[in-house]
């Protein structure tokens, strides 16, 4: 079970900011990000990929989405 970032209800740029902070903190592993709009889903996925993290899965979760991102160690 990876770390969870709960960005539901937050508007731009908070979800991306929180995701990137967590990416910086962990450097590798798994992070699950919760968002509640399509815009945040797209922005978080784009930001994760820009930092070479892989978007493993995007799952509908109630009104929002769970985004699972992952980076393996070297």
């Amino acid at each position, binding site marked *: 079970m990876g770390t969870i970032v709960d960005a539901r209800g937050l508007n*731009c740029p908070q979800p991306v900011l929180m995701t990137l902070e967590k990416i910086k903190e962990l450097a590798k592993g798994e992070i699950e990000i919760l968002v509640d709009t399509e815009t945040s889903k797209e922005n978080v996925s784009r930001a994760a990929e820009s930092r070479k993290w892989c978007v493993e899965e*995007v799952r509908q979760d109630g009104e929002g989405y769970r985004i699972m991102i992952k980076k393996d160690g070297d």
Partner: protein
Amino acid sequence: MGPFKNFFSTTWGIIGVGAFIGLLAPILQKLGNPGNMGICVACFERDISGALGLHRAAVVQYMRPEIMGFVLGSLVAAYVFKEFRPRVGSAPIVRFVLGAFAMIGALVFLGCPWRALLRLAGGDGNAILGLAGLAFGIWIGTLFFKGGYNLGRTEKTYTSVGWLLPLIMIGSLILRLMFPQVEREAQSGVLFYSLTGPGAMHAPLALSLVIGLAVGFLAQRSRFCTMGAIRDLILFRQTHLFLGVLALVVVAFVTNLALGQFHAGFEDQPVAHTMNVWNFGGMVVAGLAFALAGGCPGRQLFMAGEGDGDAAVFVLGMIVGAAFAHNFGLASSPKGLGPHGAAAVIIGLVVCLFIGLTMRKKV
């Protein structure tokens, strides 16, 4: 989720939408809208404020159908793609105040970020100072974001809450149809119409509305945002939204050349002044306010169309801010700064800094 789920959120999608707006804005100007003002969210909301009689600046009163189109086009897109999410409750009063000061700052410069880009694409050199101010204001905003600034979470709410601003726009459109412009009359029923000045210059109603709807629809799909473009570049080194803005400027420039609407220079530009300290200063306030509120004035309309009640409050703040701007002599004119424009910029900056410095909490 197919590959065509949302083409518009891809790089080519945002470039396409920017190019589309860059093409249509100069065409709206050709069809009758004011110079370098094919589309200006701030100016058009200001004109609506005037048409409703909230201010009585006789030269800027017209119910602009583009604004209604933006909100309703976004509403349609949100419903078609199942993205309508009624939500509210993230510091609405703060959003109202930010909207009001964003408008006041924009009216000191004479244009929102959209118009700043269109002014640049029309050859107006003063826009460079406005855009520099905009970027500087957004940069201040990014410092607050790094310091933990946020306005708190929204909550899911009733569908009708998300419908209120779209309904206000439908109501405005009904008023516009019920009380059409009468030649050489400054008033038609409850609505005011400019006889001279920018408010008297407009494309035909149906074309303005259709183009507004198309832009609203596409901007909702692509999340086009002029403030976000600069913010993401500074904060995350991300160029995604910026490419859309770049496409807008390039295509608007070429279209202006083709239509004979490109006139390079600083002096005698349409609906512009050359007091560049204040062009810069006004847009610093506007840029900071847009950043703190999470979207440029266009984006706020599109978010309101998706059901975001806080964005709707920001829009109403802008319309009320426009009334103050003209009633209190804060707005500039082609002659230069308004009598109290300088004070407004300073107060606006202080208010935005207060908001940015004091509203931080762990979420």
